[in-house]
């Protein structure tokens, strides 16, 4: 579904991505793991056009994404839950969800989807008219995911959804990801929590300083000695 080949990104003077290639097959969960600064977020930002790649190709369902505006890319069916949730704090929960569907014109279907998000996250319905800034971290994460789903994406990208959440909430989030995936959503996930991510994912890529160091199925990577040592903290 998503093919990235030899992607290079420069940030100011920094060579952030040094030729990354990866594939996200339809219906699967793919995860990128790696240390801070390995280039995980940059990869996602490049996919949705928030940073311009220097060279390389990003192809989504046969269409080239490099050089397209973010708006266009989102309309093609990609969406991202950004790191740190980034809900709009001075908009209500409901408004946040509506904004998620900003590109869509089918008002009835939008109402339907809001209902669906509310079934997925009943808490959001309770807080419908509350300002998003007043929600707890977990609720904000739910809102961010719900908001992303509102664009009816075919590929959902998530940047560190478990960041800053209590362990019990982290489990919830991972369950939700599983559920969304079971409904047929393709997911590209970045996680610090490498173990949980690899257990969840069909495929995983290990990024190190802007390049892919290892790739394989989630299981294979979990079994890999180096991954166990460096990312799972086992000796």
């Amino acid at each position, binding site marked *: 579904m998503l093919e990235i080949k030899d992607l290079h990104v420069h940030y100011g003077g920094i060579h952030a991505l040094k030729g990354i290639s990866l594939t996200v097959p339809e219906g699967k969960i793919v995860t990128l793991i790696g240390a801070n600064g390995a280039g995980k977020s940059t990869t996602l930002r490049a996919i*949705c056009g928030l940073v311009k790649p220097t060279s390389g190709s990003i192809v989504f369902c046969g269409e080239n994404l490099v050089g397209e505006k973010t*708006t266009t890319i*989102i309309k093609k069916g990609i969406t991202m839950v950004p790191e740190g949730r980034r809900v*709009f704090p001075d908009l209500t929960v409901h408004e946040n969800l*509506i*904004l*998620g569907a*900003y*590109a869509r014109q089918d008002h009835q279907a939008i109402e339907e989807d809001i209902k669906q998000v509310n079934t997925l996250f009943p808490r959001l319905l309770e807080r419908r008219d509350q300002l998003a800034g007043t929600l707890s971290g977990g609720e904000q994460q739910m809102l961010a995911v719900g908001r992303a789903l509102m664009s009816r994406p075919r590929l959902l990208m998530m940047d560190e959804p478990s960041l800053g959440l209590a362990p019990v909430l982290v489990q919830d989030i991972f369950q939700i990801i599983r559920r969304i995936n079971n409904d047929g959503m393709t997911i590209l996930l970045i996680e610090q929590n490498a173990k949980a991510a690899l257990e969840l994912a069909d495929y995983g890529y290990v990024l190190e300083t802007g390049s892919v160091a290892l790739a394989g199925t989630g299981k294979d990577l979990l079994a890999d000695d180096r991954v166990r040592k460096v990312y799972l903290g086992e000796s």
Partner: protein
Amino acid sequence: MTATEFLQHLANGVSLGSLYALIAIGYTMVYGIIRLVNFAHGDLLMVAAYIAFYGILLFSLPWPLAFIVAVVLTTLIGVTIERVAYRPLRDAPRITVLISAIGVSFLLENLGLVVFGGRSKAFYVPPFFAAINHIGETAVPNLVWFIPLVTVALLLILMHLLYRTRIGMAMRAVARDLDTARLMAIDVDQVISFTFMVGSSLAAIGGLMWGLKFPQINPLMGAMPGLKCFIAAVVGGIGNIGGAVVGGFVLGVGEILLVAFFPELAGYRDAFAFILLILTLLIRPTGLLGERVAEKV
């Protein structure tokens, strides 16, 4: 000072204050969305006033039509300024955009000098606005209550726009977080253009009312109101529409009452705004209604 006199001053203050408020709203919207002190905003007042002036003088337009044409053209100019002088600098340091805005402001003022000439011109004031009403013993020209009325009406429309429409929601989103707004498939450039459209049309209406209130127009007429209204926006809390209104009133009423109570300080009237600004920045940098705005990195 008699009560009547005081009421008269107060009415003038409210009238001037609501005019400041109207112009300050444009500043605060633009600042809220791209963190730019749009120096050229004040000069749009002048542009609108001159377009109306020449519309009436050269094309013999009836004044309501001339006013509408002035608002439309000024709005176009405002949007063009953003497109040409600010948008290419979207990723540049904020100070670079500020320099560009200063450049645009000077360009408008000096183009005004070149095209319209430096001598003040008499702005046409329709008899209705000049007509004087007596409320009790207080003599009030129609314009004095008309300006606050227009401000309130526009404010209501603006609030509806911001809080009840799709584009308004998008504007609030863009003001808060540019990248995340982009992720919502919001065309940020379009939203910013729209913001300039709204801001510039408010400036144009403000300029026309300024012309009615002070019917001597000249190419530099926008500079001082521009600065003062930016100050009003800061005093109220920049980026906050309600704050701009409060700031406008504080400044307008303050100025008038200062001169009324201390006539010997009349010469310092223009300094009042700047002193207020500096006090605000020192004591309450977020303004009266403002919340803490994080510096964008």
